[in-house]
């Protein structure tokens, strides 16, 4: 048994703290089982319960493994592995006997923190919390290795742990920046299923975008070089939808037509807009580039309808340097493209078709204006809770319910255009974005998901038309929809905000800027970022050997500083005593009484007192204090000031009276 109650309490406390994040993710019965084991252990330590008998170990272990199997159907993989590690840690705690066991548990606690990092991608808050648990585990390790009964206060262990970690921090920093990162995995990595659950789908049916409207989750962040373009140009292009059954819209598959895989091209009519986009992990392959993309990043394909698709999906946060042309002209329509952009399901939505056919004699640009005027002037409403639509969805929306979200308006508009003979298609993606004034970048959230339309006009080529944007703000049904509607409508942004709202917004933006930095520089620091940074610092000129040499040199320097600090703070406490005595000897030397090198302080005092009886009392006092401090048990706190005062007062006159 280890005679270490305080150490064991530290162990128990820090372990509970480190187990919390994984346990709260696990199924409740599993969490309950682990907490029961932890409770048992605290009863052992606090109430003096006996350790469980040896024959109980096997059933307890089997129960733990069973719980993992029940929850995950496997023992392998990050999630099940984390669960297994958690339960094994609790079980190991129950059979804790020696210091060796206790230290092993601390190491496994650290390992568990790494496990959490591998399974979830922690936010700053969780990262900070886990750093705190590392501190607690370190303090526990110190307490365990301090098996003396008169232990210091808990603050002592925490302070020492914090000191050690602070001294290790520069080493971590240099290794983190400079340790060569490999581009690929060492062995197969299963895709992390916990990332990017919500996001844009590759098809659209009424209600599919409204589903995202509530989500404040960040889709991506954008930093522009120079001024941010006006909100009316901030259309982030995602899936382009061509085919419909009258209800649901789908994109073209690569195999559908040879035309589709031809490289896209367009003619720029204005300056290029350059920006960097950081895409949050999601489950789809789109890069939501500003319309229209002028560059194709490595590993991506640009389709004929200007979608940027990743060849191999990486389920990680990615950063891209991109460029766009916000004013453009596309080349003439091919036969195949015209056919695809005019097709409508046979016999569906007859009333819409009839309406569109009435317009087909007009010029295409007029047809567009007529349809937009219909939405603007007739009582069409903007709402997130539109009535459910049946099989003739477009007819029901256009003529009966007249209530819908952006996907309704985009789909209905494209249906009308195609019915009137104007080539058209639906584009989904994001629109607008929240400007973070503190760090000057744009946050695009899932709630910015949007659907709009494109029509082909003979002079201009494909042109964007956003039918939702023509609705007047008075026809927004619910107050909660106002904000979303406003953000699609650039004129209404930032009007009439109270002081509180403004400051809350500032706080939120500050936090998001921090989060963005964390994502970019901590979570997203991979081999590409490393090469970029080292290139910018000029370190790559010397090759990787040079980088490793710098890494070792900086680490050694850190250690040197730590050592110097240790040696300085641990400087002998007798030093002030020696200094004072030397000063006293100098004063005596001035009147001709020098201390011989072999002469002890007592002998010197005797000789000096004989030579100068007038000083004998003072010499005796100083020598006694000095001898007491240097060789005896004299208390440093109280005696040292007395010695200092005595030496200061000691002013031997040159001539004896």
């Amino acid at each position, binding site marked *: 048994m280890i005679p270490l109650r305080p150490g064991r309490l530290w162990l128990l406390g820090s372990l509970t703290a480190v187990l919390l994040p994984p346990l709260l993710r696990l199924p409740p019965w599993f969490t309950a089982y682990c907490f029961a084991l932890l409770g048992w252990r605290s009863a052992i330590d606090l109430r003096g319960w006996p350790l469980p008998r040896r024959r109980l170990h096997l059933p307890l272990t089997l129960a733990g493994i069973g719980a993992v199997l029940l929850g995950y159907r496997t023992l392998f993989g990050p999630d099940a592995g984390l669960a297994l590690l958690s339960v094994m840690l609790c079980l190991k705690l129950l059979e804790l006997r020696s210091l060796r066991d206790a230290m092993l548990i601390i190491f496994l606690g650290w390992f568990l923190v790494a496990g959490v990092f591998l399974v979830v991608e*922690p936010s700053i808050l969780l990262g900070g919390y886990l750093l705190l648990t590392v501190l607690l585990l370190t303090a526990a390790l110190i307490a365990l290795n301090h098996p003396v009964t008169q232990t210091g206060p808990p603050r002592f262990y925490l302070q020492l742990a914090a000191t050690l970690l602070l001294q290790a921090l520069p080493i971590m920093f240099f290794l983190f920046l400079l340790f060569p990162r490999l581009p690929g995995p060492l062995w197969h990595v299963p895709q992390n299923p916990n990332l990017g659950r919500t996001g844009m789908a590759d098809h659209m049916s009424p209600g599919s975008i409204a589903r995202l409207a509530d989500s404040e989750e960040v889709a991506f962040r954008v930093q522009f070089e120079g001024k941010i373009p006006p909100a009316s140009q901030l259309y982030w292009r995602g899936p382009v939808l061509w085919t419909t059954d009258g209800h649901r819209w789908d994109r073209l598959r690569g195999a559908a037509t040879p035309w589709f895989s031809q490289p896209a091209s367009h003619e720029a009519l204005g300056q290029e807009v350059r920006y960097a986009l950081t895409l949050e992990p999601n489950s789809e392959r789109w890069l939501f580039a500003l319309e229209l993309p002028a560059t194709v990043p490595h590993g991506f394909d640009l389709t004929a309808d200007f979608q940027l698709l990743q060849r191999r999906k990486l389920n990680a946060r990615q950063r891209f340097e991109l460029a766009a042309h916000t004013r453009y002209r596309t080349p003439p329509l091919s036969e195949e493209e015209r056919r695809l952009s005019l097709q409508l399901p046979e016999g569906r939505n007859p009333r819409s078709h009839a309406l569109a056919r009435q317009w087909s004699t007009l010029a295409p640009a007029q047809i567009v204006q007529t349809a937009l005027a219909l939405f603007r002037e007739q009582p069409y409403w903007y709402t997130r809770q539109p009535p459910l639509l049946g099989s003739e969805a477009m007819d029901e929306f256009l003529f009966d319910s007249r209530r819908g979200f952006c996907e309704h308006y985009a789909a209905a508009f494209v249906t009308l255009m195609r019915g009137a003979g104007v080539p058209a298609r639906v584009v989904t993606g994001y629109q607008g974005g929240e400007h973070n004034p503190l760090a000057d970048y744009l946050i695009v959230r899932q709630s910015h998901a949007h659907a709009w339309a494109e029509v082909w006009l003979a002079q201009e080529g494909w042109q964007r038309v956003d039918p939702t944007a023509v609705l007047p703000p008075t026809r927004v049904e619910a107050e909660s929809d106002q904000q979303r509607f406003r953000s699609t409508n650039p004129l209404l942004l930032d009007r009439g905000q109270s002081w509180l709202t403004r400051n809350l917004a500032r706080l939120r933006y500050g936090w998001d800027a921090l989060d963005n930095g964390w994502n970019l520089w901590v979570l997203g620091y991979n081999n590409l970022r490393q090469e970029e940074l080292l290139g910018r610092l000029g370190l790559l000129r010397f090759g990787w050997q040079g980088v490793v040499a710098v890494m070792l040199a900086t680490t050694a320097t850190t250690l040197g500083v730590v050592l110097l600090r240790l040696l300085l703070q641990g400087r002998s406490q007798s030093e002030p005593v020696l200094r004072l005595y030397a000063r006293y000897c100098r004063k005596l030397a001035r009147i001709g009484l020098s201390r011989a090198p072999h002469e002890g302080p007592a002998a010197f005092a005797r000789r000096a007192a004989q030579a100068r009886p007038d000083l004998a009392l003072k010499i005796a006092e100083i020598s006694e204090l000095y001898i007491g401090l240097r060789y005896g048990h004299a208390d440093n706190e109280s005696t040292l000031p007395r010695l200092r005062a005595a030496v200061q007062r000691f002013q031997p006159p040159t001539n004896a009276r």
Partner: protein
Amino acid sequence: MPLTMHQRFSLARFLRGPGPETGPVLLDRHRVYILPTRQGLLLGAVLIAILLGAINYDNALAFALVFLLAGLSVVSILHTWHNLLGLRVETGRCPEVFAGGEARFTIGLRNETRQTRPAMALILPDGTETVLDLPPGLHWTTLSRSAPRRGRTALGRFQLATRFPLGLFRAWSPLELAMGCLVYPAPAPPTPLPSGRFGTIGSGGAQGLGHDDFTALRPYQTGDSLRQVYWKAVARGQGMHSKQFAGEAAQELWLAWDLLPGLPTEDRLAHLCRWVLEADEAGLAYGLRLPERIIPPGSGPAQRSQCLEALALHGEQP
């Protein structure tokens, strides 16, 4: 103290230290060694496992954790080493004991820094370990080892070691101080003091003086019987004095080797030891006669320890 290469890397120096030393020993950087403990190596394996995971999953935070913990371990080397470095070890007293008892060696540990040196372990060759915290200043601690046989017994080699703060590394310094403890023979069961012509020289009480008829006073010494104290002087505030009787000088008791024929050496020594103790208790003046040494009669603590020392070292080369 510069060392030659040969000395610096000598295994004996590493394991045993420089041999018996007298006086204060400063544990400087030449004699404080440090190596990872088994737990330290285990943590190394754990860190390699996390590093492999971090590389494979390209997980930045796992990298950061490995580097933080690696930094922590390396920093702890300095702290552990520094915990022992600069400690001054001083030799203290080791009071004499009787065989069968425990020899207690007092060792002074002087911490000249301003910080406490926590969890310092003193380890004897038999594995007994004393762990203590050393605040600034001088601390006396006692190391005990059993003393089964009479004679001079040495403390032997011991270690000062520490694993504080993290237990991943262990700094140690082998030490051998020139300290010996005198072990007296174990006294035999009480036996009456010898009497008669073998035991005494001269005759007591010839002048017929009673206990009150003392002839002189001398300052009280530890070991004097309380019956001899001249209490009247104490009552007058003149201090403790012992009465000296006229016959005392003549009452000489000889404790002689020859008084115990036929017994084995150690038994003889045991009996003599008991007699010395009893004679001393009774406040008698006594002399000791051993084959190789004669101690003239006397009394008091000095006489007692002189006699006991002679018994302890009987037969040993001086």
